[in-house]
């Protein structure tokens, strides 16, 4: 998104402009939800964390000083809340042994020309579910770094800023994540 427009929306939110809040949600909800979904592995938790993220953002938006990009800041809040959520869920699962419901993938929307047939859509959804279950097996810190790089498409520098980690650590987490994922995908005969 245009940096200038981005800054304008943020400033408007800081001033308390009621329309700016909805605009800001619209601008960043996909980025937040996408990371949360792949981090947590199911749609329900991802929606909860997305909501939590925006509450946190608006509660602290006055403390945002334009020196970093707002998108980086949003990613940082999302990342922290995802990690918190996973820690909490781990405790819950350990204590209650409650089953975790995994994401129910929906097929992507059809494109008008050369629309894929239903079998292809189903196969694609199944494949994504398989990949997600491989991602779920990764250590959460490795998964987070890998998702920021290979799914969200951020640069190593941006990730280092989001996670507040040296570049070397970021690279090694991503490499480890990729190696581990490759192993999982090979086990599932996807690679």
């Amino acid at each position, binding site marked *: 998104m245009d940096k200038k427009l981005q800054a304008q929306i943020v400033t408007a939110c800081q001033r308390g402009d009621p329309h700016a809040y909805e605009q800001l*949600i619209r601008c960043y909800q*996909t980025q937040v939800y996408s990371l949360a979904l792949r981090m947590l592995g199911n749609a329900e938790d991802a929606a909860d964390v*997305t*909501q939590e993220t925006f509450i946190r953002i608006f509660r602290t938006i006055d403390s945002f000083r334009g020196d970093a990009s707002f998108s980086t800041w949003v990613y940082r809040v999302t990342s922290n809340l995802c990690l918190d959520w996973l820690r909490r869920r781990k405790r819950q699962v350990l204590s209650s042994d409650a089953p975790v419901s995994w994401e129910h993938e929906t097929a992507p929307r059809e494109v008008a020309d050369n629309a894929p047939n239903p079998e292809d859509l189903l196969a694609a959804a199944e*494949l994504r579910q398989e990949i997600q279950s491989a991602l779920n097996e990764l250590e959460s810190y490795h998964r987070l770094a890998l998702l920021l790089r*290979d799914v969200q498409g951020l640069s190593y520098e941006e990730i280092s800023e989001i996670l507040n980690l040296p570049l070397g650590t970021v690279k090694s987490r991503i490499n480890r994540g990729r190696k581990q994922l*490759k192993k999982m995908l090979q086990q599932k005969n996807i*690679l």
Partner: protein
Amino acid sequence: MWELYRIKNVKIKKGVKSMSCRNFQDKMEDYIKGSFSQHEGLYFDEHLSGCDKCRQRVADLRATLSLLQDMAVREVPPGLEGRIVKAVEPVVHRQRNQSFRIRKLTAIMASAVALTLVVLAAVNYPWGAQPGPSTTVFHKQPASVGRLHPDYLSTSNRFEVDFYRTERVNGLRLLRLNIME
């Protein structure tokens, strides 16, 4: 680090130090994404032509990255946006009220300060005759909104606790005041 300067006339000279597998793996992502120089490309090709393992690594990483790219979500599920808007409403509302209260209180305090200054000047108090920093700044401010550096506030007018955090410009903590006429 491997070296590039031994290449001459785009041909690898005999005895050139070839890339190790480790060096290649460090650069593998650049190779796959095509972000490398012509010289680097020569080293990559030279290594790959003699290393089955790295060729397999390239194929695996390329496939993994392409699978991951498809994992990005292009849109949120229906209904989520409305749910978020509703959930943040109380937070937004509270913040708006808070900032309104702050603005109101600031205005009251500013007018109190202004009144004090007027009184000081009227009784021809020494500070009034020879204004200290605080009075000087007040007189220089435009009528409606002005910025005051905390240093300019005299000890009798301390309201830093609530208001100093409202603005920071070039590392200076500034206080925005609504000065009443």
